[in-house]
């Protein structure tokens, strides 16, 4: 095979790449979501710590099976509303005042990835009782990505 053939192959592959990029483009936000997913997974990363600002724990001790927790680092705030379901598991509805890219609740042996909604809303379902922490990656208005985690708290 001659060098010209090699050049021709390389050129043809370059054209093929361009065609596939046109015909079957990657979802526009895929890269951002993958960056966030990896950030949340990466234990070597330094997360800014969100501290507990307010907890409506009285509700837990009462007959109503809900609790509300608020975490903040002074700039970013996360609000969690925890509801115990009939099957004994918990549903966590959350809201963060930034654009959420990836949110996970990490327990000792397992973790849950939140469904992301609009305007910083997210939800976790089927979370068993126990201690865990929330880890999240958000993007601020300037487009900067930030990774946070909360202290451990009990669901």
């Amino acid at each position: 095979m001659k060098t010209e053939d090699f050049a021709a192959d390389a050129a043809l592959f370059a054209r093929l790449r361009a065609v596939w990029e046109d015909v079957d483009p990657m979802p526009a936000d895929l890269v951002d979501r993958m960056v966030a997913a990896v950030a949340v997974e990466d234990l070597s990363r330094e997360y800014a710590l969100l501290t507990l600002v307010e907890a409506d724990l009285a509700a837990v001790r009462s007959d109503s099976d809900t609790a509300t927790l608020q975490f903040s680092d002074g700039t970013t705030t996360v609000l969690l509303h925890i509801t115990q379901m009939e099957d004994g598991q918990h549903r966590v509805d959350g809201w963060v005042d930034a654009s959420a890219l990836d949110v996970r609740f990490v327990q000792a042996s397992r973790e849950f990835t939140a469904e992301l909604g609009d305007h910083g809303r997210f939800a976790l379902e089927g979370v068993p009782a126990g201690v865990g922490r929330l880890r999240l990656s958000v993007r601020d208005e300037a487009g900067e990505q930030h990774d946070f985690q909360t202290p451990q708290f009990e669901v």
Partner: protein
Amino acid sequence: MTDIDRSEPDGHERPGDAPPPASDESAVPARWEHAAALFLRWREGETRAMDELVRLMTPVLWHVVRAYGLDRALAEDVVQTTWLTLVRRHETIQDPRAVSGWLTMCARREAWRVGKLQRRADPTEVEHLEPHLPTHESAEQTAGVEDEKRQLWNSVERLDDRCQRLLRIIAFDDRPDYARIAQDLAMPVGSIGPTRQRCLGKLRTLLEGDGWRRDSDED
């Protein structure tokens, strides 16, 4: 010899193995070299280097995974699984220079596995990619270029599934072993793999039958 001719990853390729050293002849580093450098920086504690690696390689993984015929949602899952596997199991990569090949191999294995499940679950659904050219217009993208792309796509679509998949994977997967094997054998990269040559040959035949200018793919 590592070859990508097999459409299914079958364990003969060992992503954890050390790839050959980079060629220092090219001025612009190949993507796999760039990936290796970022991976090394991340391992040395620069956490943000991983973000760059994700930005560099996610488009490649997307096309490699989609080559297996997964629907778009499943393809996204496979790309994400690939990245999480890297973070969890990066210790198993002995030589950081292997990282891009490791990623594409991991993605191919997962795509193959998930694809089998998908086909079992829904054997009738075959996604047909509608060419939606042109997607954007710019000064460079003249009508001529678009015609050429359309012509190329028409020919690609007439190839069998295996050739389509193979060519797509190769088009996006630049791996060190290819570059080095070619260099070692004093053979052009494009000459490796009989199936690949057969598929390229078919494509060229289709293109020429369509009036494709032979010299137009050599610039």
